[in-house]
């Protein structure tokens, strides 16, 4: 395994789904159910059985809009306010209306949701305004349940194929994708009528404080390949300066997590054991307070559970040590941290792009369509703000159905074989060098520069310097990177995606000349929110080979936000009692 082989195969399908984590399997399933005659291919860099953010399952739904507990309109309001108003509400409203149907569907797949003794859903309140958090008692089986459905519907699954670029026809319609096998370096051209990108967050962008390249918050496979591919295909990407930054267990870099432990009575404190934030829901404003506390004499910050009853802690442990990031228990054991006795030291994560938690993603409308005809995006990489796992499922379903409908009405778009040849040359160039810099060093340097120059507080002069340094890394990557086997080839492609994302992070952050979303876009030289000039989306795209930025107006709100409601998320800090 891992020797580089020469090979090029071609297959064709109606709908191609790239990424088999959360949104991807649901998109593929829905496309096939919508049109059982269609050929649906699901391409995955790892293995669909255990890939993506929910590789080991999930403890619950963070944003379930369940009749009787919350209304879709209320949810839209909550997300609009939490995201500082920069929201096209139509996709959010669609999500809020569809997600209950998806919960019922997941229930049919065998995924259970916590009920009270009366048989009602046991919904918990974590957000500022409404209640949307619903535990999943057998959340560790999510991937298995999805996989069963994919097998039943005979979705064609290609594991260990990493997509590298999209193909487009002469008239700009998506025509498929080029992929390379992660273990043999053989190429696969997948022709398709429609393509759905479900490739997760750009989670390997900043460097974790530990210095370990793979010690990231996101599944470390999520290196932003979807963002890079969408960019190179000419799609527009929205609000990338609205980084993802999360409060995590220090060094372990996984969530502790407020959505699990919060409803049981755990909370975030400073070193004195005092609360300093009103609401543990992950927003940029909350992260700013978290950052301020870390910088103040009252840091570091902790998650406090030591006041809870022994049985309660045991219950929390059973969840935290079984799903999502189950090695948490081992980490605490190694440090001698028992939740009953010691508070858990917390820190802020490296930066990334992710719409699952913030709002940085490929621009999509309420049918999950990107700005490239025939190309869709769903899940963490599509800019439906704060959409989490249930958003990935729900918007994946929307994308799958529309992509199947569109595919059934068109012929297979033509593509240019010269594009494939050029891409093969680009990908294989590092394998032809006898000497040079290995991908891990290029990646390390890129990500260290991201930390040094691009993470907030954002300073204009620093970001400009960062751009210059990143240009030097790009020069090395283009002319001097060396790859010795197929596995390293995958890492070299990831290093290129990461560098693309770093360039986008710098360009987007420099473009928006105001501060917004708390810490996410805290621009020191433009400290105030400026609604007059910047109450809009910012879009990045590739035009004539260059990165350009533009403004896009927010669609008129479907759910009105009253003046006094707008600042709900601005009031995060607990005010001292007079």
């Amino acid at each position: 395994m891992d020797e580089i082989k020469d090979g090029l195969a071609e297959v064709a399908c109606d709908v191609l789904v790239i990424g088999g984590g959360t949104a991807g399997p649901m998109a593929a399933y829905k496309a096939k159910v919508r049109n059982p005659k269609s050929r649906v291919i699901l391409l995955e860099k790892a293995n669909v059985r255990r890939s993506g953010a929910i590789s080991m399952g999930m403890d619950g739904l963070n944003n379930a809009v369940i009749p009787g507990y919350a209304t879709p309109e209320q949810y839209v309001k909550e997300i609009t306010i939490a995201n500082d108003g920069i929201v096209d509400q139509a996709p959010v409203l669609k999500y809020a209306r569809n997600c209950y149907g998806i919960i019922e569907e997941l229930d049919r797949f065998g995924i259970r949701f916590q009920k009270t003794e009366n048989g009602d859903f046991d919904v918990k309140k974590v957000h500022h305004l409404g209640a949307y958090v619903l535990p999943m008692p057998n959340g560790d089986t999510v991937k298995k349940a999805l996989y069963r459905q994919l097998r039943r519907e005979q979705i064609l699954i290609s594991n260990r194929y990493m997509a590298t670029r999209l193909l487009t026809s002469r008239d700009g319609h998506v025509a498929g994708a080029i992929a390379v096998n992660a273990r043999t370096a053989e190429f696969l051209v997948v022709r398709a009528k429609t393509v759905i990108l479900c490739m997760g967050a750009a989670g390997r962008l900043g460097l974790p404080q530990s210095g370990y390249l793979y010690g990231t918050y996101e599944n470390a496979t999520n290196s932003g390949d979807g963002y890079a591919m969408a960019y190179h295909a000419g799609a527009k990407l929205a609000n990338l300066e609205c980084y993802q930054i999360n409060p995590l267990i220090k060094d372990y870099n996984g969530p502790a997590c407020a959505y699990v432990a919060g409803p049981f009575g755990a909370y975030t404190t400073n070193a004195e054991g005092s609360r300093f934030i009103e609401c543990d829901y992950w927003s940029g404003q909350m992260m700013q307070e978290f950052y301020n506390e870390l910088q103040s004499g009252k840091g570091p910050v902790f998650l406090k559970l030591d006041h809870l009853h022994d049985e309660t802690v045991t219950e929390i442990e059973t969840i935290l040590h079984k799903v999502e990031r189950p090695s948490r228990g081992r980490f605490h054991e190694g440090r001698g941290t028992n939740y009953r006795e010691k508070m858990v030291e917390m820190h802020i994560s490296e930066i990334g792009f992710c719409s699952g938690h913030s709002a940085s993603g490929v621009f999509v409308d309420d049918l999950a369509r990107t700005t490239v005809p025939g190309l869709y995006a769903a899940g963490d990489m599509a800019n439906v703000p704060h959409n989490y796992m249930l958003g990935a499922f729900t918007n994946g379903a929307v994308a799958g159905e529309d992509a199947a409908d569109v595919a059934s009405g068109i012929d297979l778009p033509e593509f240019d074989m010269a594009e494939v040849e050029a891409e093969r040359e680009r990908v294989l160039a590092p394998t032809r060098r006898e000497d040079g810099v290995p991908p891990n060093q290029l990646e390390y340097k890129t990500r260290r520069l991201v930390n040094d120059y691009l993470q907030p507080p954002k300073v204009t002069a620093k970001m400009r310097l960062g751009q210059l340094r990143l240009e030097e890394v790009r020069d090395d990557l283009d002319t001097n990177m060396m790859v010795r086997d197929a596995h390293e080839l995958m890492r070299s492609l990831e290093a290129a995606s990461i560098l693309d994302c770093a360039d986008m992070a710098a360009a987007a952050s420099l473009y928006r000349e105001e501060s917004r979303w708390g810490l996410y876009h805290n621009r020191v030289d433009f400290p105030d929110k400026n609604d007059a000039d910047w109450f809009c989306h910012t879009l990045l795209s590739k035009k004539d080979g260059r990165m350009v930025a533009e403004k896009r107006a927010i669609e008129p709100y479907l759910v009105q936000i009253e003046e006094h409601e707008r600042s709900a998320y601005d009031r995060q800090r607990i005010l001292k009692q007079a």
Partner: protein
Amino acid sequence: MPLASSPTTVPVVVDEAKCIAEKGCTVCVDVCPLDVLRISEETGKAYMKYDECWYCMPCETDCPTGAVSVNIPYLLR
């Protein structure tokens, strides 16, 4: 520039007495999201080839014989 070979500890340990890779098992290699496990040509057993582990645990959870243990990578411990 010439390459060096710098040593690094890897967090995943395979109990060779329990591993049944010689009977054709490749489960841990198949499921690992980061694709860092391989079957050794020398020993015929699974081992961690690349130091690129997300300590996520599918390898340990899905191994049919309980041969895999995931530790926290040294830099994070």
